[in-house]
């Protein structure tokens, strides 16, 4: 029915006529020729009966397309939720991709951010500027009881800052350029009355600390440890009963509050301070971030994974690839059993990447789908030695996926260097921070049994 000019006839389209039927069908099927378009335009502007018939036919076509799940979904319901991990992904997952962009440090967000006016809080002198924000972030000035929404560009007096959701991020910038980046569900107290002091109230952060005045190191306090920082890049993850420190450059002195024991933690090393002293404090060399990472789902979800809610725990001590997240959401009114937004997310620190990103890194997926759909993949890469500068990599056309017959398992290997990339703000080493796999088509029935990052 891809009607060409010859078939449309030269004397215009009349109504009713087979030419009218063909032209309207061509509109619906996207195969309209220029001549058909011109003739239909004339007819529909001059013949109200033809116009109404056109609208009826287009509306019926639109209903079939929009309400296919309700009208035609009976067959598809035979496909039930089954192990391994299912990713029933809605078209709206384009939006999940948007969300992942925001969570990654949001390169697209920055242009808007810079337009924001600087807000001077009336309580106390400003000690930091909120340099970057994505998701929901709250602040509270010291002495105040109420938290308020914090926006990029605000200058804040001493107080608390809280990133509310796993996808929230915020970067505090002190006057000397020291950056402190929070992400996930974290809460941090801060002040700078000649000496910078941070209190970790929940979660953790990553900091890039400029050289501090002699005798006035930046102090970080958690419930179990105190850190003294002169100038370095490091990450802190505080959990009830313990604090983990990862140092990327420089040296950080860590003191265990329980007994006053301390250790100097050099670059590329880590140390943990617990509330129950267990002998001498040690700093251990961190294993370099591996170039490979693999996760299988063929026995269902790995231990510690949950569907239905975001996972917010930090990874196990010593882990170099942090934690993973998955969320399942079911939407009212859907005949499909569930829809899952699937992202795999590393711990929010420079060291918290799934694997090191190199020019040869490939993403390998073992997948199956119930129905044909487009597959879009988003990857967030972050510098390993800086708290900011996330980079998005995305791929919208996946030929191997397009050719994969429905119902059949297939392995797709994609070189990340071939992905469309946002500008990199850092030339240093990068790690893959998270991966989001989405489809645009409704209820594609995407199943994922293995995902891996590895050198080609």
């Amino acid at each position, binding site marked *: 029915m891809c009607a060409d000019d010859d078939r449309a006839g030269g004397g215009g389209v009349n109504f009713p006529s087979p030419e009218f039927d063909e032209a309207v069908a061509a*509109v619906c099927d*996207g195969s309209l020729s220029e001549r058909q378009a011109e003739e239909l335009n004339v007819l529909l502007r001059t013949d109200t009966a033809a116009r109404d018939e056109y609208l009826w036919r*287009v*509306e019926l076509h639109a209903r079939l397309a929009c*309400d296919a799940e309700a*009208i035609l979904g009976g067959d598809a319901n035979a496909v039930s939720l089954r192990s391994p991990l299912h990713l029933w992904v809605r078209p709206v997952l384009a939006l999940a991709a948007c969300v992942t962009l925001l969570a990654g440090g949001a390169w697209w967000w920055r242009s808007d951010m810079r337009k924001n006016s600087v807000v001077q809080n009336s309580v106390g002198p400003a000690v930091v500027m909120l340099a970057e924000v994505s998701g929901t972030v709250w602040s509270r000035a010291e002495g105040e009881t*109420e938290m308020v929404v914090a926006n990029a560009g605000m200058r804040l007096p001493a107080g608390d800052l809280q990133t509310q959701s796993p996808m929230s991020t915020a970067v505090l910038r002190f006057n000397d350029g020291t950056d402190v980046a929070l992400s996930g569900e974290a809460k941090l107290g801060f002040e700078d009355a000649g000496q910078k002091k941070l209190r970790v109230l929940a979660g953790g952060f990553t900091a890039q600390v400029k050289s501090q005045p002699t005798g006035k190191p930046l102090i970080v306090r958690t419930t179990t440890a105190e850190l003294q920082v002169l100038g370095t890049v490091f990450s802190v993850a505080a959990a009830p009963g313990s604090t983990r420190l990862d140092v990327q450059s420089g040296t950080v002195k860590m003191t265990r509050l329980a007994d006053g024991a301390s250790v100097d933690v050099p670059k590329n090393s880590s140390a943990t301070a617990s509330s129950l002293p267990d002998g001498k404090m040690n700093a251990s060399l961190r294993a370099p971030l591996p170039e490979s990472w693999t996760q299988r789902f063929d026995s269902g979800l790995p231990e510690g994974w949950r569907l239905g809610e975001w996972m917010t725990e930090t990874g196990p001590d010593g882990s170099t690839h942090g934690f993973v997240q998955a969320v399942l959401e079911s939407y009212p009114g859907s005949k499909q059993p569930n829809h899952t937004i699937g992202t795999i997310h590393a711990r929010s620190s420079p060291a918290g990447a799934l694997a090191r990103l190199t020019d040869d890194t490939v993403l390998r997926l073992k997948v199956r789908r119930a129905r044909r759909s487009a597959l879009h993949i988003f990857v967030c890469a972050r510098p390993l030695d800086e708290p900011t500068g996330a980079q998005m990599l995305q791929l919208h056309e996946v030929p191997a996926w397009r050719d994969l017959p429905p119902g059949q398992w297939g392995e797709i290997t994609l070189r990340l260097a071939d992905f469309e990339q946002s500008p990199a703000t850092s030339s240093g080493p990068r790690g893959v921070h998270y991966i989001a796999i989405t489809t645009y088509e409704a209820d594609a029935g995407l199943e994922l049994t293995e995902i891996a990052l590895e050198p080609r």
Partner: protein
Amino acid sequence: MNPNSPSPPDQPRFLRLFLASEREVRRTVLAMVPSLADAEDIVQQTAAALWEKFAEYDEARPFTPWACRFAQHHTRRWLERRAIWQRLLEHGLAEELTQRREALRPEMERRLAALEKCVEKLPEEQRRLVTGYYYDRTGIGALAAAQGGSVEAVYKMLQRIRQALLECVRTTTAQEVEA
């Protein structure tokens, strides 16, 4: 205000609102651009724009009309760059169709409620074709290959099926009214 109260941009809330409006947004786009693949592009552009502007959404007002205005705007922008669609909808026809569709809507809602029943009445082969095209979004070429027929024949068959369905909903509604 406290940290537990919703605050934009709030992804789960946005997803809930958008999903509730998604069907109407899609219909709005399809009414102007019935081509499924093209309409899908526009819906995605609309969704991205809605998310980007979600902080500006006034919660006191319903979400769907707000979303549909975005859909109309993005549809118009999309049409501006497509010569064939411009030819089809130029000289004020786009506006005329939009207005007339609004006028016909109550009747369309009433009659098209019978669409599911009419689809059920289709012969198995036709129902499979409709499911493949509209639900599975299988391309015409693949459908033709699966049937062992020509692409032209599949287009023709879809055209006939749609006309039969339209006739069916009209008849069904008329019978219900008479009953």
